[in-house]
């Protein structure tokens, strides 16, 4: 398995190369550059700016420089963040996103899995319908509306929690909650259907015939065998949460990395865009690898050679 893991990690290099190239090409193909605004700069100033950031080099030279510095781990500089290194910009925003994502992940898994199991265990009961209804609501209502719906009572009306910002534990509660609801809905649904499928198996009927209590049957026997699809969705959600979320971070003014890429694209900050995309590619690749390795841990029938 170690050899498999190392192989996968080595594959990351061509993947990053491909991602970087595609991003570079797309970025320069899109209309408008970093100095194009609604009140444009004089041509001489634009010429000086292009000179300072090497944007007046031919494209293939720029591409070469980009590859060279990326290979050394230098993700470039951000034009819109006081020329700071993209690595440093990401490093400063990462803690907030990690805390938020981590807490949202724990809530989503911690609430979603049991909810799904209970819904499956008591199929077609009130709990089942209620949890399915909630899951549908959380999956359909956009996250910024959920966020505002949380802020209005807790912050504006009762002044229990801050309406936004960062810096203390009370700032984390509302955004983490808002962020966790959608993944929780998906995890609950997948858990429920996976558990239901496993419940049809013969060994489950045997356990029930032996007189085990239904909840014990579900949590000890069924759940463990239903884990493969659940691990898949948890892995996908972890990737999505770690790359930050633009909407929640904007609504709650969380200084994370979720806002950075979108802002970078809107301002055509080439340095920030390529740096962020490469960073995301690494994160997603690693999360996918961990998910695949978890399969082997969860289901002994899966072996990697």
């Amino acid at each position, binding site marked *: 398995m170690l050899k498999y893991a190392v192989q996968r990690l080595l594959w990351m290099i061509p993947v990053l190369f491909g991602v970087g190239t595609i991003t570079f090409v797309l970025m320069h193909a899109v209309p*408008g550059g970093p100095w*194009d605004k609604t009140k444009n700069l004089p041509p001489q100033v634009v010429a000086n700016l292009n000179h300072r950031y090497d944007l007046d080099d031919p494209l293939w030279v720029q591409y070469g420089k980009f590859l060279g510095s990326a290979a050394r781990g230098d993700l470039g500089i951000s034009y819109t963040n006081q020329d700071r290194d993209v690595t440093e910009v990401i490093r400063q925003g990462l803690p907030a996103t990690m805390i938020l994502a981590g807490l949202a992940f724990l809530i989503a898994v911690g609430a979603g899995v049991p909810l799904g199991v209970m819904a499956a265990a008591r199929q077609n009961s009130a709990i089942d319908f209620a949890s399915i209804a909630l899951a549908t609501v959380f999956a359909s209502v956009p996250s910024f509306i959920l966020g505002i719906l949380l802020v209005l009572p807790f912050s504006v009306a009762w002044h229990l929690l801050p309406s936004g*910002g960062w810096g203390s534990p009370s700032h984390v509660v509302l955004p983490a909650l808002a962020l966790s609801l959608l993944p929780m809905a998906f995890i609950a649904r997948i858990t429920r259907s996976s558990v239901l499928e496993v419940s049809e198996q013969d060994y489950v009927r045997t356990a029930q015939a032996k007189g085990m209590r239904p909840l014990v049957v579900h949590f000890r026997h069924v759940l463990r065998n239903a884990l493969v699809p659940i691990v898949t969705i948890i892995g996908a959600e972890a990737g999505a949460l770690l790359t930050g979320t633009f909407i929640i971070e904007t609504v709650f003014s969380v200084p994370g990395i979720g806002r950075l890429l979108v802002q970078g694209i809107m301002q055509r900050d080439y340095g920030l865009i390529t740096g962020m995309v490469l960073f995301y590619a690494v994160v997603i690749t690693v999360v996918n690898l961990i998910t695949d390795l978890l399969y082997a841990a969860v289901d002994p029938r899966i072996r990697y050679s």
Partner: protein
Amino acid sequence: MILFKQLVALTGSLALLLVVACGGNAAATPIPVAPVTTAAEQPPVSDAAIRVNLGGEPNSLDPQRASSLLEFSVLRQLSQGLLGFDENLMLTGLVAAVVPTVENGGISADGLTYTFKLRPGVSWSDGQPLTAGDFEYTFKRILSPEMAGPYSELFSAIQGGQEYMMSAEADEAAQASLREALGISAVSSDTLVIDLAAPNPTFLQKVALVAAFPVRQDVIEKYGAAWTEAGNHVGNGPYVLSEWVHQDHITLEANPNYWGEAPKQARIQLSMITDVNAELTAYKAGDLDIARVPPGTEAGILADPTLGKQVLPSSQLSSLALFLNTTGEAFGDPIVRQAIATAIDRDSWTEKVKNGVGESATGWLPPGLPGYDPNVGSEYRFDAEKAKALMADAGYPGGEGFPEFTLTYVAAGDQGIMAQFLQAQLSENLGIEMGLDPLDPPSYGQQVIGGRQFDMTLLGWSADYPDPENFLAGLFSSESFLDITGYASDEFDRLAALAAVELDQETRIGLWRQAHQVMISDAPIAPLMFVERYYLKSPEVQGLTLTGIDGEIPGDTRLAEVYLSPEPRVLER
């Protein structure tokens, strides 16, 4: 019983009176002027911070790089330039003791030499004295091709400025000698002389811009690009940058070495909430003292019993108009353009859609700007019949046969609603159909501003400096890179060229007035409105002075005078 503190303060003020009465010569040994207040003078203040939202992260707090309103708002607290504007937008001396004029010898008779005498006793926030040498370094830095500052072109009138700005590709020695040849020199520690290559009557207004705020050479050389971080930053304004958590907030604290009166509130907390609605929520929750009113919610907020009383309107030197591509097929004919201008019911937009926020405009120069004339463009007051007649004259009776055209605009704020409003107006009043093309800012910048690939566009303009030259020269001179409409009028160019070098201010403003009239008659634009913004201000906030050149924060030119009364605001439940 007199307290010791009051006794010291009293003695200090008596000593000051003695010195002033003896007529101290400004050129003699500088006498430090300590801000003196007795306990009786101070209004009751709470020690809370003034909490305002910046709306986003500043891209740079380097004055020569700053280009956005929110950067200006922060920089105005951290630094001050030679000159500034008072609440009537007249030039006033800040670090410079007086505004140079021909009468006081600050400006030479031919308008080519400007002499600035610095006020004595001004120092940087770290205690070092502020000298003319700092300003020499700053002005040279503005023009440096390495800096590529957004406002560098405004200073290119300085002798040697053009050549230096164009020397990006030259080698270091050549650049250094061009820098030396610039007409900027500190002839003594408190006197700065600037020579221009040609007369530039608005030069002093440009000196008052944020771009000309002084910077410290040794600090920049020591820290490089990180010199603007909290802890490294050195300025000369009423506040210092005590904390900058990127993407999150900025904290400003009173500068103990400030030459002027100490700020009434010792701390300002600037948050970076990017979403306007989240900002309003924070204000309602009591987390902000001032907030913007999101466009479109004005009616609801004005009607609210609590919030309605806290609304603060702010007129800025800002105009909005429809710019028409005069070189295109659709709008090449001036009669067609005049028909468009007459076919728009501006009042129904301002009153019904914007709930009274803003003012209908038939001209381009906004109220408060020298040269503003409420009667300009009166021929374009809404008149559907007249507009139809004009269209028929142009050869399109009832709009028949008019080529297809599109309105290109930036998809932000309420531009989308305005675009639809205009679409309805032109269809109803002229019978012509308009397509809509919303773009994001960089695409818009490249296509419309850079490439003139548009038929009609919505464009707003805010003053960089409060002068008609800023609103007219760049946008409508036929040679200018910003002549988006392709407007080319010999008469306008002639008047603009005369105004560009006219040193008598009254004559100069008169010339711009005429040029404005000429431009409006030719109708390369259909004026729409003068922009207004509404803010919410907590009743605790006192002493806020709004001006037409405010940045993102209302009253940011005088935040040091603002104080918070100790009674907290009642929050709605």
